[in-house]
């Protein structure tokens, strides 16, 4: 086996050392710094992007919060306005209702007064008719001509009983 021929050992060991040292220099001084730099740079860019995304998200959240606060304030203001207007309208409506119902009541009172008047008048005229009728009846049946005052009194008494 050529592997166990010691005459080549010195040469193999020498060139192994030379080549390994050469490769170590290439790897340690050139390859690793360059590749490491690329990887670091990429990691940094990704981290920056992530940081920016986080920051933008925070800004967005803040904007949304501001918007919602403004919205809530506007809504509250609108409610206030509405309530004020409602209150005003209620006052006006109450005033108008009171006014109208006063007018109606007054008219009703007037009408009732008028009805009362008419009723009194009607009762008066009924008394006269009754007295006239009573006098005519007495004249026809008894042939008497009764005293006008006595007839009126009798009619008034009868009407009082009828009431």
């Amino acid at each position, binding site marked *: *086996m*050529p*592997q*166990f*021929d010691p*005459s*080549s*050992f*010195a*040469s*193999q*060991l*020498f*060139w*192994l*050392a030379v*080549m*390994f040292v*050469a*490769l*170590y220099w*290439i*790897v*340690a001084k*050139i*390859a*690793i710094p*360059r*590749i*490491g*730099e*690329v*990887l670091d*740079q*990429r990691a940094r*860019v990704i981290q920056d992007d992530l940081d920016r995304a986080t920051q933008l998200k925070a800004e967005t959240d803040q904007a949304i919060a501001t918007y919602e606060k403004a919205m809530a304030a506007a809504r509250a203001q609108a409610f206030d306005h509405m309530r004020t207007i409602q209150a005003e309208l209620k006052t006006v409506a109450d005033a108008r209702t009171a006014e109208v119902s006063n007018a109606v009541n007054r008219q009703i009172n007037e009408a009732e007064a008028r009805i009362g008047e008419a009723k009194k008048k009607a009762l008066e005229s009924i008394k006269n008719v009754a007295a006239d009728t009573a006098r005519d009846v007495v004249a026809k049946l008894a042939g008497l001509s009764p005293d006008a005052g006595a007839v009126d009194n009798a009619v008034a008494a009868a009407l009082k009983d009828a009431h």
Partner: protein
Amino acid sequence: MEHPETGHSPMEQFIIEPLISINLAGYDISYTNSALFMTFAVAATALLFWGATRQRTMVPGRLQATAELLYEFVANMVKENTGTEGMRYFPFVFTLFMFILFGNVLGLMPYAFTFTSHIIVTAAMAVFIFLAVTIIGFARHGLHFFSLFVPPGAPLGIAIVLAPLELFSYLIRPVSMSLRLFANMLAGHVLLKVLAGFVISLGVVYGVVPFLAVFAVTLLEIMVALIQAYVFALLTCIYLNDAIHLH
């Protein structure tokens, strides 16, 4: 192990052939086919990382994605097994991983040489890691490093019995580590060579069977090449973790 038909031995592929003869202070340190493929592994890694990091775009291209994948794969392996303190050894583990990975994978090419199929190479790497881990352990913990050999929570009687076993398993680490890589590479390449020899000797008709076997074993060997590079790097991380955190 001469093959009857072709006359080629399956071991022939492991022969070290000097390309440029160099002699330094009495040592033969010729530039060989092994050194050439180590050069290829270094060049391939350098080319991959050079091409991958030429533009360095935010959205990586194919080559850059490959390099980043390898980087993060090894970086995560080191971080998960040794913690953040172990990350200072990340360049070493990454180099080790890439060197063995390309050594294994390039060795699978036809006519290629696999320098990880030589025990002296895998042993040198394993012994270096063993010594480095031991030195790091003593440097960080002093004599307290010996507590690594006492199983945590074991009663004294059991600890006395277990400590030599723990010490033995610690000392055997470079052996198992180097043999694992060496044997996997050796066996895979011998198997491929033997099966490929059957294709020739059985001819066009019956040779289809070993040819399909070569195809299947090649796929398996690609997987083994990746897994063994991973295992070597992972064991390095685990040993480093022992040295850094003891238990």
